[in-house]
């Protein structure tokens, strides 16, 4: 197990490093000079040159990359000139919106999907099962941002139950803050729940076809007992993998959903910074998002290997 972890960890670090190079390189080809853009068309050459050196744009590429990387190692994410603040503190401000949003959405989708998956698998072939599966097919096809617009129309504009957008901040109290995250979380969660319930159902059905399930049934256990005590545990392994992958979807989904609801989260920060050509913010936030995806997949892999010793040999 130790060998497996070290091997995977090395791959994770390598992946992270290559990802950082790709992101850095991609942002170098942006047409337009950030300094020129910030100062406007009336700026003198001197003031542009001065801002360029202040932004650190006059140092050679490699040096700039190394500065950025070595800063990140010690938690210094650089300085944003369009926001006039350290990127680190910008991220800290926004992560308290995006992370709870993604976590609420993930919890919602799990809480809905796993019972639906178990229920339909145990009533396979019945009208309930067919109807539920038809609903999930439609659920997968729904774009989450369209669903979000619809939710805003019904619950914020028609019934005025929740705010249509914006975020009051956590210091206004838990309920007002949670209330403004509720619709975005539901919009993110439902399409994911549709996928997850289908995965749970088919994983359970696969497990129920195994020999040891037949043995358990043959020795006189009820179908329900076998489902809950024997099949469920094994079926949850693929479900866990999908959950890990969904976290990446949820992170990416927040970019669009945060724009629908005007939520000051990481997605909106990236989006606005790209438009303002604030490279420091974009590259740091994107690296952070990519790193969290890689890290979560690593943890899922570990959980997988822990649950199934056969996987440790392969790597």
């Amino acid at each position: 197990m130790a060998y497996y972890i070290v091997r995977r960890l090395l791959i994770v670090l390598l992946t992270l490093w290559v990802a950082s190079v790709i992101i850095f390189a991609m942002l170098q080809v942006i047409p337009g000079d950030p300094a020129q853009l910030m100062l406007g068309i009336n700026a003198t050459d001197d003031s542009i040159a001065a801002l360029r050196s202040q932004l650190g744009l006059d140092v050679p590429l490699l040096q700039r990359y190394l500065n950025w990387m070595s800063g990140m190692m010690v938690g210094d994410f650089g300085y944003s000139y369009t926001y006039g603040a350290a990127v680190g503190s910008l991220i800290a401000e926004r992560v308290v919106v995006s992370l709870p949003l993604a976590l609420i959405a993930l919890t919602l989708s799990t809480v809905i999907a796993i019972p639906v998956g178990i229920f339909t698998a145990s009533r396979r072939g019945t009208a309930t099962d067919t109807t539920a599966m038809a609903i999930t097919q439609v659920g997968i096809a729904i774009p989450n941002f369209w669903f979000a617009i619809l939710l805003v129309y019904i619950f914020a504009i028609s019934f005025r139950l929740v705010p249509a957008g914006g975020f009051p901040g956590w210091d206004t109290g838990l309920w007002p803050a949670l209330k403004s995250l509720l619709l975005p979380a539901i919009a993110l969660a439902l399409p994911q729940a549709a996928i997850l319930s289908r995965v749970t159902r088919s994983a359970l059905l696969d497990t129920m076809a195994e020999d040891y399930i037949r043995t358990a049934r043959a020795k006189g256990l009820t179908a329900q007992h076998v489902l809950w005590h024997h099949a469920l545990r094994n079926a949850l392994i693929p479900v866990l993998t999908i959950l890990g992958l969904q976290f990446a979807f949820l992170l990416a989904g927040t970019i669009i959903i945060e724009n629908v609801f005007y939520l000051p989260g990481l997605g909106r920060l990236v989006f606005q910074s790209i438009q303002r050509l604030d490279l420091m913010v974009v590259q740091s936030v994107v690296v952070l998002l990519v790193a969290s995806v890689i890290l979560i997949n690593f943890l899922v892999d570990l959980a997988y290997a822990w649950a199934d010793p056969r996987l440790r040999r392969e790597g």
Partner: protein
Amino acid sequence: MKNALRNKNFLVGIFLTGFILAIALISFVWTPFDTTKLIIADRLKAPNLTYLLGTDHFGRDIFSMVMVGARNSIAVAFFAVGIGILIGVPLGCWAAAKRGFVDELLMRSSDIIFAFPALLSAVMITAIFGPSATNAIIAIGIFNIPVFARVARGAALSIWSREYILAARASGKGAVRITREHILPNITNILVVQGTIQFSLGILAEAGLSYVGLGTQPPDVSWGRMLNEAQTMMSIAPHMAIIPGVAIIVTVLGLNLLGDGLRDLLDPRLQRER
């Protein structure tokens, strides 16, 4: 053929996909109204007998816009899938034929691309190179490359281990010829199924990008673009937002069902009652 008529997923899928495709094709020769003409007097009309699906804030007929939008949304998804297949499949076949270092390199690079949330990178790419339908195609297409490379590699590897490949090699055929004559024909089915799935993901991605203003640009029409314009009109003209969304759902649903149906029909080994 008999099986196809019995497969419900396939039937519903081909009907919905065919319907949307027909609408898109008809839009080239005929739409109820001209979508480039603005009739301000008739703006924000709810669905009625003249304007079957109502009008938008410029007085454009939404039914006609859905038809023209179908064309653009499908084109973006189609070319994005095309990029994925044209680059991904040869890469996957190459890795499967060569194994070793090439294979390892390809798999690790696709791991890296998969670590980027696709939408986030698509937003970055379109923002960097400028928002346009072409850049949306490239951005979505890049993420289709590793998907097709992996699927092609996996399928090709299983064919390479067959005995008739050994026979082909013994008769002196090279890797390129074996790939062309034996591998490709045998992995086409799997690629078709994957292509359908990627197509539906492409429709969703185009809609998302155009919705945030990074895909199709006005005056061109796409479903995502229509949703973008509908959002501020939501309280007075909800039909403007509902209709393009339904069009997206019908298309994606149709493609997904078609994909499921094709998988059952083309690969009998996978056929199981689920």
